[in-house]
């Protein structure tokens, strides 16, 4: 009677698509460029896979073919994470309301 975890993951995936649909449509058009850069940053959460790969070696043998690919992937994903979030931050910091004093 145990349910395969795959089905739960599928449920999570489908519900997330609904959430994505609504959450993206509710983004104001003037922030569509930051939206592109922030989705870029968050999709780099793939770094979790890269870290697992990178840590797969043992103490004597840190580098094996698999972990090397992992390390490169870590660097690539990190460029994206830092680059993506920071450039978004930079853009968002520019959106200002009219100053009250004026």
């Amino acid at each position: 009677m145990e349910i395969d975890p795959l089905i739960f993951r599928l449920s999570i995936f489908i519900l997330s698509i609904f959430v994505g649909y609504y959450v993206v449509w509710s983004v104001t058009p003037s922030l569509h460029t930051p939206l592109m850069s922030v989705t870029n940053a968050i999709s780099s959460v793939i770094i979790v896979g890269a870290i697992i790969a990178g840590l797969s070696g043992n103490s004597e043998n840190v580098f094996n073919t698999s972990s090397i690919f992992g390390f490169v992937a870590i660097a690539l994903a990190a460029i994206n994470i830092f680059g993506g979030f920071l450039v978004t931050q930079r853009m968002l910091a520019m959106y200002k309301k009219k100053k009250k004093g004026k």
Partner: protein
Amino acid sequence: MISANLSAIFYLVSGVLFILALRGLSSPETSRQGNFFGILGMIIAVTVTFLSVGNFSTGLIYVLLFILIGGSIGAFIAYKIPMTAMPELVAGFHSLVGLAAVFVAISAFLNPEAFNLGSQGNIKLGSLIEMSIGAAVGAITFSGSIIAFLKLQGIMSGSPITFRGQHPLNAVILISILVLIYYLCSTQSSNLFWILLAVSFLIGFLLIIPIGGADMPVVISMLNSYSGWAAAGIGFTLENTALIITGALVGSSGAILSYIMCKGMNRSFFNVILGGFGATNETSATKKEQRPVKSGNADDAAFLMKNASSVIIVPGYGMAVAQAQHALREMVDTLKKNDIKVSYAIHPVAGRMPGHMNVLLAEANVPYDEVFELEEINNDFANADVAFVIGANDVTNPVAKTDPQSPIYGMPVLDVEKCKSVLFVKRSLSPGYAGIDNDLFYKENTLMLFADAKKMTEDITKNL
């Protein structure tokens, strides 16, 4: 090492934080907080991964080292990049996500034990399917984004590269990818895995070259969407909730943005993807008659605006090219000092990517409550005195309303012609992105200001 349950909960938390990150973008006020949630979610996901692997061998130092290297490069790029280069930046970043997905898939394929997916040559079938789909989509994202990046940067010519039999060739390759995945899963052969990757890189390349440089924004969003689905695929392999949620979010986001762009241009998605746009239209652009236009200089423009009581600014791609946003802002400041009401009208596809104009105006410190969307402001043109069209062209073209033959027919446009007078700042009479002539140039109440947008705006400010 923390338990699988605890890490599952934390991955869920980080997925929810990513949702909140996108949710924050529903208004500029909450957007910074949203970005903060995104960063927090990422920190949690990374930390939990460390704790759940729990293998703090020397490997850890290298992991941190590579994060540091990548992070510094990323931060450096983020601080140096000019706002006008956003489209290229996004394309470049996408290619990295794609490549990272490929590399993770390779690692998992070479060392499935580390990921709990079985042993080499004997990987769980489900995982192998997810993995190969993730790798193929990642590879397509990578090579496609590279082409998009090169085209946008101008390193590669923006004109579509077409040859006979292109579409059948692509179709054959796409089918062969499916066949490869099938055989890969039944044989577990690593040769097939490498061939699959190579072919996927190739098709990414072939799919994008026929698409004109100006269509790249749609392509970028599409690739964004792909990278999301790739991430979700890898998420299923790694049984990671955060990746699945994020993949679905990014996948929807890219799909919706390409939909919005296609709708804004009144073209179908397939029309964009099948490519060739921008090449075919060059003929129609050259056959234009020599009709008389009224052209003026900065002085004339300044005179007209000084006597106006309300001015609507319509920025377009040319403003981005000329980097005229700061000069424009100064001009507007001067106008406002003279008690002239000024607002900005932004067409949904003005510029070359969604929200392009908004970012540039924000960069120039234009308060966002002076900036209006098409539907909000289109009725106001009738009551305004001057429409100042700076580097925009297609988004004002009335042919979209009148000529069913026109490629942009049906696209919503800004009704600038309803203003008492229309000023067009551009360098020549040449057409814009869609390659079609604009009747407005020859109208009674239009004054053309032939010059670089930045230069012209500065000159006008001097004359005000």
